[in-house]
C-alpha cells in the first residue's frame, strides 16, 4: 500500500483497520516534506518532532470508532492562528508572533484527531493570485516548478498535490482556495459565507473571507467540512446551517439536477483548453443525470472592480492593527510614535499589501466613500440578487475556475491589473456569499491541470460537493 496515494478518508480507514499506523503515515508525509519542500516551498513552518509526538499519542488512543479523519496528517494555511505555533501570514510584519489561541476550525480538526504537520506558505496576508508575494519566497507548483501554484492558498494546494499531507485548510476571499486547487490539480472548496467560523483566521476582507478544505477529492472535502462547519459563539457571522452530515449525502446521483452555464464565463479571454475541459465536465454531469443549460449572467462583469474596492477597503482597516506596538515585528531607529508607525509599516509590509491598503484607504476617504465604497456595496447586493435569481432556475452553476492554467513564475506580478482580472470567475461567488468547489478536470497541452467550478446557492454546500463527487465517480468509472 502506497500511503501517500490514498485519500484522507482511505488513510483514516486504513488506520482504524490497523493496516497502517498514525506514526507511519506522519513519518511518510514528513519524509515527503523533507524531500520536496526545498523545491516547492509549500511549508513555512514544519512541525517534525511535535507532529510525531502527537501521532504517537493519537495512535495510543485509537479505537475502532475514532472519527473518519482521525490520525490523518494535514497542514494549515499560515493565516490560521495556532496556539504556541508561529503564525505569520507570510509577512515580515508578523515576525515573532505566536498566537495565544487557535482558530476554531483548527481546534475542531484537532478534536477530530488531526495531526498538524505545519503551517503553509501563501501570498502575504492572502493578497495575491500566485503565492509569490510571501516574505518567505514564492511557492512553486509541484506539477511544474517553473509555474506558480496559484494563490493565495498556494502552499496548501501545492502540499496536497505533492503528498506533503493528505489535506489542508486554506482561506478564500476572492478565489484563494479554488484557483490554486485548480492550478495544482486538487479539489478545493469555499463554503457558504458563515458556514465555517472565521475566529482565528487573520482577516483580509472580513465580509468575504471563508475557510475551506483543499484535498484529494470531493469526499475528503465533505468529511472535512462536516468537521469544521457550524455555528461558533466566537464568530457572530457564523451560522448553524445544514452541516455535519454532508459526506453521507454524496450518492453520485444527479438525476433532476439542473446545471446552468453562464455564457459570460465562456467568452473572451478564456483559454481554449480550459473551455474544452469544462464543457467535457458538463457532459460528465449529464451522464450522471443532470440537465445542462446555458444562460446569461451579465452582472458578472462588475464583480472584479466591486471585489477590489470592498476587499481593499476592509483590508485597509483589518491590517491597521499591525503597527509594531503590540506584537510582531517592529522597525528599529524610530524617533517618535508616528515614525514608529511609518517605519514599521513601510518596511514590514510587502508591495501588494501596501498597494491594497492604499487603495482601500482611498475608497473609504471622505469625499470618495460614496462614489467607491458605497457604490460597491450596492453593486454587491445587486450581484447577490442576480445569483439568487439564477438559483430559482438552476440547482448549480458551472464555470471555469480561471481563464488559463498556471502561469509562469514572475509573469503576473509585473501586471497586477491582469492578475486581478484573472479572478473573474471566482470573485462573484464571494460577493454573493455562495459555496463553490474547484474540481480537477483534465489538463492543457503542456499537461498543466485545469479546474471546473461548481457554484451552489447559499447553504447548498452539500449540493456542490455531491455534484463534484458525482463527476469524480464518473471519470473514475
Amino acid at each position, binding site marked *: 500500500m502506497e500511503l501517500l496515494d490514498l485519500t484522507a478518508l482511505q488513510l483514516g480507514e486504513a488506520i482504524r483497520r490497523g493496516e497502517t499506523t498514525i506514526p507511519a503515515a506522519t513519518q511518510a508525509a514528513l519524509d515527503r516534506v523533507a524531500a520536496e519542500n526545498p523545491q516547492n516551498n509549500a511549508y513555512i513552518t514544519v512541525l517534525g518532532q511535535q507532529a510525531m509526538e502527537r501521532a504517537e499519542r493519537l495512535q495510543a488512543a485509537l479505537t475502532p470508532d475514532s472519527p473518519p479523519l482521525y490520525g490523518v496528517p494535514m497542514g494549515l494555511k499560515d493565516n490560521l492562528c495556532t496556539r504556541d505555533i508561529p503564525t505569520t501570514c507570510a509577512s515580515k510584519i508578523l515576525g515573532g508572533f505566536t*498566537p495565544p489561541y487557535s482558530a476554531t476550525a483548527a481546534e475542531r480538526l484537532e478534536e477530530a484527531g488531526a495531526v498538524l504537520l505545519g503551517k503553509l506558505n501563501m501570498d502575504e496576508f492572502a493578497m495575491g493570485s500566485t503565492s509569490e508575494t510571501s516574505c518567505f519566497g514564492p511557492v512553486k507548483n509541484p506539477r511544474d516548478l517553473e509555474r506558480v501554484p496559484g494563490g493565495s492558498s498556494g502552499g496548501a494546494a501545492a502540499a496536497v498535490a505533492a503528498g506533503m499531507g493528505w489535506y489542508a485548510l486554506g482561506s478564500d476571499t476572492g478565489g484563494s482556495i479554488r484557483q490554486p486547487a485548480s492550478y495544482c490539480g486538487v479539489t478545493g472548496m469555499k463554503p457558504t459565507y458563515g458556514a465555517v467560523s472565521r475566529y482565528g483566521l487573520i482577516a483580509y476582507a*472580513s465580509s468575504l473571507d471563508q475557510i475551506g478544505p483543499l484535498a484529494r477529492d470531493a469526499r475528503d472535502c465533505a468529511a472535512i467540512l462536516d468537521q469544521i462547519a457550524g455555528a461558533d459563539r466566537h464568530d*457572530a*457571522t457564523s451560522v448553524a446551517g445544514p452541516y455535519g452530515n454532508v459526506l453521507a449525502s454524496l450518492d453520485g446521483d444527479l438525476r433532476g439536477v439542473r446545471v446552468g452555464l453562464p455564457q459570460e464565463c465562456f467568452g473572451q479571454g478564456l483559454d481554449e483548453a480550459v473551455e474544452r475541459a469544462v464543457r467535457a465536465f458538463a457532459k460528465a454531469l449529464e451522464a450522471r443525470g443532470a440537465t445542462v443549460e446555458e444562460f446569461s449572467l451579465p452582472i458578472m462583469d462588475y464583480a472584479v472592480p466591486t471585489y477590489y474596492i470592498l476587499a481593499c477597503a476592509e483590508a485597509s*482597516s483589518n491590517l491597521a492593527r499591525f503597527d509594531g506596538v503590540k506584537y510582531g515585528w517592529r522597525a528599529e531607529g524610530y524617533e517618535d510614535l508616528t515614525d514608529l508607525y511609518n517605519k514599521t509599516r513601510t518596511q514590514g509590509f510587502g508591495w501588494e499589501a501596501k498597494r491594497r491598503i492604499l487603495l482601500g484607504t482611498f475608497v473609504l476617504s471622505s469625499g470618495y466613500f460614496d462614489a467607491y465604497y458605497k457604490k460597491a456595496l450596492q453593486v454587491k447586493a445587486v450581484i447577490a440578487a442576480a445569483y439568487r435569481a439564477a438559483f430559482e432556475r438552476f440547482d448549480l452553476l458551472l464555470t471555469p475556475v480561471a481563464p488559463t492554467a498556471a502561469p509562469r513564475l514572475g509573469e503576473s506580478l509585473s501586471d497586477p491589473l491582469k492578475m486581478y482580472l484573472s479572478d473573474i470567475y471566482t470573485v462573484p461567488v464571494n460577493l454573493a456569499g455562495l459555496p463553490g468547489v474547484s474540481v480537477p478536470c483534465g489538463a492543457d497541452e503542456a499537461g498543466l491541470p485545469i479546474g471546473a467550478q461548481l457554484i451552489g446557492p447559499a447553504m447548498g454546500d452539500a449540493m456542490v460537493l455531491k455534484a463534484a463527487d458525482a463527476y469524480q465517480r464518473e471519470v473514475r468509472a
Partner: protein
Amino acid sequence: MTWETVIGLETHVELATATKIFCSCTTQFGGAPNTHCCPVCTGMPGALPVLNEKVLEYAVKASLALGCTVTQNCRFDRKNYFYPDLPKAYQISQLYLPIGRDGKVSFPLPDGGRKTIGIHELHMEEDAGKLVHDPWQDQTQCDYNRCGVPLIEIVTEPDFRSGEEVVAYLEKLRETLQYLGVSDCKMQEGSLRCDVNLSVRPAGSDELGTRTEMKNLNSFKAITRAVQYEAQRQIERIQEGKRVVQETRRWDENKDATYPMRSKENAQDYRYFPEPDLPPIQIGDDDLARLRAQMPEMAEAKRERYQAQYGLSAYDAGMMTSEKALADYFEECVALGAEPKTACNWIMTQVLRKLKELGQEPGRMAFTPDRLCRLLALVEEGSLNRNTAVAVLDAVFEDNGDVDEYVRAHGLSQVRDTGLIEAVVAQVLADNPQSVADLRGGKEKAFGFLVGQCMKALKGQGEPKLVNETLRRKLEEL
C-alpha cells in the same frame, strides 16, 4: 454688547455590565495592568467581536429614558485611527445608524425653573485602553484593561446657555442612568466623561459661532469653571478682532484655563464603514415593548409621589431619592408597614450615619429593611426607648444581626410592668421627702430628680412615659 454662550455636550457613559461589549472579560475598574484582557479586546490577529446582549438592552433602556426614538434596525461601524491605546486601530462604534435618536430631556434648574434640551443621538461603542507615561524610563506603557468596556455616547443639541444648565442636565442624566441601573456614573472613575462644545454669539443672533471642544473635564466644578473661562476667552478674542479657531482644547484644572490640543481644521478622516464582523441588529417590537415595560419609576416622579402620598417634605423626598438603592430601601420599609415619615427620619439620621461611618454605599448595605422596621416597631410599642434603639442599630447594622435577639441577649427591653413601676415610685417618694417638699414649694427641677431616681432604680429601662405618669399620679395622691 451682551453675549450668549451656546453649548452642546458629548457625554460618554460606561455601562455597568459585568463583562465587556465584545468579549467575556470583566469590566471591573482597576486591576493590575493587562489582566482583564483576552485576544478579542487586545485586538489579536484573527479575533472577532461578539455583541454582549446586555449592552444592547442597556442602550435601548437609556434611549427610552432620554425620550429617543429607538433605531430598531441598527448596526455598528468602524472608526479608523491609529493610536496605541486602540489595539485594533479602529473603534467599533455607531455612525450611520445610532441606537437612539431625537430625544428630549427636561430637568429642574437651581433657580427653580425648568429646562428642556434635545438629544441628537445616543450610540454604543467600545472604550479604548489607557496610556501611562513613565517619566523615569521615558516610556509609554499600554494598559488594555479598559479596552472593550461598553460605552454609550449621548450627544445633545446645542441647547445649553450656561454652565449651570450643563451641570443640572448632567445631574439629571446621572440620576436617570443610575435609576435605570445601566451605569454607576462615577466621574472620578471615569465612568461618566463629558466633552463640552462651546461657542459664543451676540445675544439675539440665530447664527452659531465657531465652536471649540473641551476635554478632560473630570468634575461638575471643572465643567462650570471651564465653561466660564472658555466663553470669556472666546468673547475677548472676538472683541480683539481675532477669530475663534475650531479646535479641541484641554481643561487644565490646576491652571484654571483651557489649552489647544489639536486643530479640527485639519481634522482626522476616520474612514467610517459598516463593521463586517457584526451582523446588523434587529430589535423586534416585542423586545422593545418588554424593555419599555421594565422602565423603573424615575427619581423626579418618586420625589413628587413621596411628598403627595407620604407627606414628606421636599428636602426629605430629595434625600430619599438621591440614590435608587436608598429609595428602594425606603419603599420596602413602607411596604413592610413602617410609618413613612418615621422611616424617612431613621434612614436620614441613623442609616446614612452608619453608612458614612462604614464607608459603604446604600446598594451594598447589609442591614435589611425588615430589621429597621422591627426596630421601629419596638420603639413604637414602647419596648425600646429611642436612645436604646439607636444603640441596637449601631450594634447590629454591619452584620444585619437579629434585633429581637440582641435586645433579649442584652436585657434592653423597657420595663412597662405598672406594678413594678408603682412600687419603685412609692419607694422613691418615701426615700426623698425633701424633694417632694421642694416640688410642692414650686421647684419644678425636683421632679426631674425624682424621675432620675426612679430610672436609676429601674436600671434605666423604665418606659419614660409610664414612669412620668405614675410619678405625677402618686404625687397627687400623696
